[in-house]
């Protein structure tokens, strides 16, 4: 159907519409499986046991239950408390995160500029969070396996990411964007994802750590046990960081499904106006130009 505007050729697959269309069938199947899994868990819970005992039993079962280490499909909720101490904490939002990444002078300057921008409210732009920022937002994501790629659906901002697993190389005509372009391959039981092609318009974390267009991001995904996903992130961005640096983060497998949470200016505005009726204060600033952040490093 070449004249069908919704027909998704390989070249069009990066558009949201095509991704949405392509994964609808997969989503239905995954949802059905999740619903069935939840029902099975509920039916097998020991009746009359205390919630605490049930929780302990569930936890013990999760550590010994069989699973396919090459299958990450399902909904994963972040478990920030599992991050090793001493690493850069992407949710240390107190204003003085400690430790800091190994900034270059340019990276440090960009971070300082970004901090002011974050405090002033980058939410009003509705810019996609991209990766890695969406990984470090305390909301779940779902993994869906497709024939030639792994799809990630982030609940926050209802955003999608593709990780190509068909052995391709980076295309010559990459168009930089928030998500970057990601290739995945297996090294034993570790799923290794390499990404580049970032547009430099988003932050790496909520604190405003900068991203340069030359960022190369590596993720090493592992299922520690049936219910636990571990990802080791390494960020190699010579313009902003003096050396590659890493964050180890964890997620827990959940039996619920994601909900829609798109970011829309109209909803933000309505929300804001309602609060304004109560406190009489002026609202948010939607009039400023968006997308260009003072600390971003464009080519």
């Amino acid at each position, binding site marked *: 159907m070449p004249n069908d505007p919704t027909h998704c050729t390989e070249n069009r697959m990066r558009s949201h519409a095509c991704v949405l269309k392509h994964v609808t069938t997969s989503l239905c199947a995954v949802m059905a499986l999740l619903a069935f899994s939840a029902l099975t868990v509920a039916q097998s819970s020991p009746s009359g046991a205390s919630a*605490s005992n049930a*929780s302990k039993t569930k*936890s013990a079962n999760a550590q010994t239950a069989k699973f396919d280490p090459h299958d990450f499909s399902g909904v994963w*909720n*972040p*478990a*920030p*408390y599992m991050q090793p101490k001493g690493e850069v*904490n992407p*949710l240390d*939002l*107190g*204003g003085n995160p400690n430790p800091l990444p190994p900034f270059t002078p340019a990276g440090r300057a960009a971070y300082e500029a970004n901090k002011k921008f*974050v*405090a*002033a*409210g*980058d*939410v*009003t732009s509705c810019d996609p969070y991209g990766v890695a920022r969406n990984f470090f937002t*305390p*909301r779940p994501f779902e993994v869906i396996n497709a024939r030639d790629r792994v799809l990630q659906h982030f*609940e926050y901002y209802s955003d999608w990411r593709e990780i190509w697993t068909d052995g391709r190389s980076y295309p010559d005509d990459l168009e930089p964007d928030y998500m970057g372009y990601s290739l995945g391959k297996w090294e034993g039981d570790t799923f290794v994802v390499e990404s580049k092609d970032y547009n430099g318009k988003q932050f790496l974390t*909520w604190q405003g750590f900068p991203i340069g267009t030359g960022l190369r991001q590596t993720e090493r995904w592992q299922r520690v046990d049936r219910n636990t996903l571990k990802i080791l992130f390494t960020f190699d961005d010579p313009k902003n960081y003096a050396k590659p640096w890493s964050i180890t983060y964890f997620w*827990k497998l959940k039996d*619920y499904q*994601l*909900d*829609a*949470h*798109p*970011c*829309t200016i109209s*909803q*933000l505005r*309505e*929300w*804001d106006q*309602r*609060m*304004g*009726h*109560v*406190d*009489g*204060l*002026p*609202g*948010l*600033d939607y*009039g400023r130009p968006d997308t260009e952040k003072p600390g971003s490093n464009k080519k």
Partner: protein
Amino acid sequence: MKTKLALSLALFGGSLAASGLVWAHHGGSEYDTKNLRTLKGTVTEYYWANPHCQIFLDVKDGSGKTVNWGIETLAPAVLKRAGWNPQLLKPGEVVTVTIAPSKKGTPIGMIRKLVLPDGKELTGGELGERPPQQE
């Protein structure tokens, strides 16, 4: 002059100190998470939508004057997992809320706990997983 949005760096207590972030969408308000307030009032509006839901409550202050409070919550997706739904509250119902009030002293707050007319209690939702010992 319009006031830009301020990202509130105030964090929930306990495990959410590591995983929770709440931002005020209006008036640059940060929430005072160390001095929670409990309010009993009559629902005037329950607004279920992204980015965050809202509850508006008529509350009588110390002098007997009725003040309409705006209570911010987290997103519908988060509330659903905490047992909330779009039909949970109706205008005219009397509920009790525990909130982190705006530091500006305006009648605005971020929900921490909701007590329904039948006494059932709901939290304001979870951001990220809690450590197992706190389950």
